[in-house]
């Protein structure tokens, strides 16, 4: 069947079996390989992408369910949250093998978009669906807080400048 979806801002029409998981449509048909296969059963989060702005497990979502929708992958992720997180990931040397990090970043970007100042409990809740076997969890936590700080710092600065 043919499925039309908007991926990273570009309309794409794919000729794929409708039960093909979105993950494999992205990887094998659109060569967007930043999104990873880790478990295939929505347990590890390595395949996390945004569907209409919300994080989904692309390994367990048939591409037909994304027909006509907006999909964002790590390659096309934009906005202050993901940028601040990527900078924090470098600054705090978060990653090790890196295989899970696209999924971690996509989940974290959504967390920050909805919660500008997440607590440890918020981070536990949002991030516990993303497994990292290198156990970079402490630095992911610190990276999220660092990015949140940078974002509120720059937002606060903009507010102050606006008030003058």
């Amino acid at each position, binding site marked *: 069947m043919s499925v039309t979806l908007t991926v990273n801002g570009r309309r794409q029409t794919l000729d794929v079996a409708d039960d093909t998981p979105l993950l494999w449509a992205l990887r094998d048909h659109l060569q967007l390989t930043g999104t990873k296969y880790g478990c295939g059963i929505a347990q590890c989060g390595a395949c996390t992408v945004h569907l209409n702005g919300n994080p989904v497990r692309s390994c367990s979502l048939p591409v037909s369910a994304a027909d006509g929708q907006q999909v964002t992958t790590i390659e096309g992720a934009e906005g202050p949250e993901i940028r601040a997180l990527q900078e924090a990931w470098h600054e705090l040397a978060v990653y090790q093998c890196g295989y899970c990090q696209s999924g971690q970043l996509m989940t974290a970007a959504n967390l920050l978009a909805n919660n500008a100042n997440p607590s440890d409990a918020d981070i536990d809740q949002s991030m516990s669906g993303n497994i990292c076997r*290198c156990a970079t969890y402490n630095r992911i936590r610190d990276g999220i807080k660092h990015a949140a700080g940078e974002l509120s710092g720059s937002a606060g600065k903009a507010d102050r400048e606006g008030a003058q």
Partner: protein
Amino acid sequence: MNRSTGLSRRLFLVRGAQAGAGLTLGLSLPMKILAADGVTGATGKNSDTRLDANAFVAITPDNRVIITIKHLEMGQGTYTGLATIVADEMDAAWEQVEAVSAPADKDKYKNLALGVQITGGSNAIRNSWTQMREAGAAARHMLLAAAAEQWQVPVGELSARSGEVIHAASGRRASYGELGTAAATQSVPDEVALKEPGDFTLIGKQQLPRKDTGKVDGSARFTQDVQWRGMLTAVVAHPPTFGGKVERFDAGEARKMPGVKAVLEIPTGVAVLAETFWQAQKAKNALAVEWDNSAGSGLSSGKLYAEYRELTGKPGLEAQSEGDAEAALAEGDSLEAFYEFPYIAHAAMEPMNCVVKKTDGGVQMWYGCQSQTWDQQAVAEVFGIRPEQVEIQTLYAGGSFGRRATLDGNYAREAAEIAKAYGKAVPIKLVWSREDDMTGGYYRPLYVHRVRATLDDQGGIDAWHQRIAGQSIFRAGPDKVDRTTVEGATGMPYTAANLQVEVHNTQELVTPHFWRSVAHTHTAYVAETFIDELAHKAGRDPVEFRLDLLGDHPRHAGVLKLAADKGGWGKSLPDGHFQGIAVHKSFETYVAELAEIARGEDGKFRVVRVTCAVDCGVAVNPDVIRQQMQGGIGFGLSAALFSEVTIENGRPQQDNFDSFQVLRMRHMPAVDVHIVPSAEAPTGVGEPGTPVVAPAVANALFAATGKRFRRLPFGKEVFSI
């Protein structure tokens, strides 16, 4: 310090074929012309030329310093670590340094500690330390010589700093990129001066940006991401039990499915080749395979625990013997305990995979290869070619923890079998599902330990007697001790008047394998929980008791004291908080960890903090060391609390992350890492953080509950999941 390089040949100019590479200086030790397809030498085009050579440094006219890394980057930071050593000795600027993977070439890129090209034993830094320093120092020497010649000044008037040669008297300076071509005509020095540690500019720096890049924007290329024109994806239906074989199969339905190119029987199962992964996977699900599962029908974890426990009642092979432990035990009031450790999978985030292509001259492969030499051997066997005809481009691995370095080639061999059976010269990507990965064996083996000990009347250890039963990773027969079963039990640091360590090697259908820190995963647990038990029996503080028995082991004592001090050992704790501590040396690195656990309102525990002290000699990259301690602790904690593979009737009972529980964000304790300042030669950090955490947490759990936990994992009942 002067070091002889044993080198005297001249460097050659090499024209890089890669766009923009231009003329490059290929520094080799001794001289070797780099691969014709670029400065990286990455495809091993020169593998037919056998020279006792290593090539590690190239400088491009656009001022990049490209360092060839002979070890697999699997997250442990070896691109960063090895590049730091070379760059420091050659006074390169960190910003100009790039790291690339070495091709498969044992003569040039072997692990100097192990004699084959392999990444393992936490020794990337340890085996390469002098080699990388000499490579950097030789490059620096030649750059200085080139500048001296160009400027007609004595080389003694020149200095090098951050990628430039400087003549202070005249104010002249030139970048390494500018000097590279002239440097290439200089003689490789017979002897190079290595820096004094006080002169290091990069080694020991707190946080150098890592050189394995592309990992925050999806651009890093793992095996799973390799895409070639015309490439097919292969998946394999593997037997559901250990020792299982294909009886017969019907591929009629599968062959008719869209995109399917072939269904092939191979030694390890039935392979399906299709244009895409999902097509292959669907066709695999449509296969009707009848399996002969008879070989493994009697295999179960419960039965193995019982058999092994019985074995530990009988004398085994002697691994270490001092005094007469049996006689001493007969006289004293002894403690005895049995310990049980399950099979456990590595569960790296990237399931095993491999890209292979038959070529006219042999085979090309692209994957996160951890033992180029063993895999070349295995693949050569499959095709009946020479190992040198197997070219391997090593890519980043999405974790390994020991899984990817197999004695028999395992998944690389399977990929080769598929390519051979298919017969066409197209690239084939073998992709294992998570289930293939988790149920496929190559586990840390199941072990049982029996340990007995007595104290003397001064409160020291009079006798320690330990027997271990389980599989030898190197498949040692009944009459040979495999150190990968016993190390950590042998070489115990605590003074004991009588010490006996014995082992029974067993044979099972489950493939045994190296798992991050290998024998130490179980020997450290036994040693460090049982020593705790003895301390309590002696009525002593567990830290003081250990320190009294560590007289000859100052580095053990050093990290133990540091962890106790920084973690606040013995301080008053909040209600419901408890401490435990452990210390262990593995792979020449000393680690102590103090674990603090807390009981929650539901009565379940969490590990809230681990304070880690590590002595690994010179700290090449302090932040990489911290990363590896943090990660090693998380990995060890997974195994301590949750992870195991149990086998029933030959069939593994866990096949994915829903049943094989691993540590998640909500379980991760805060981790503080303290590095002991040292001028000793550097040792590894990939594994040594792992084995110490389980006994530290178990000792804290004893402090909390008065119970000893002797079967791992121990967290499912008492810890918050």
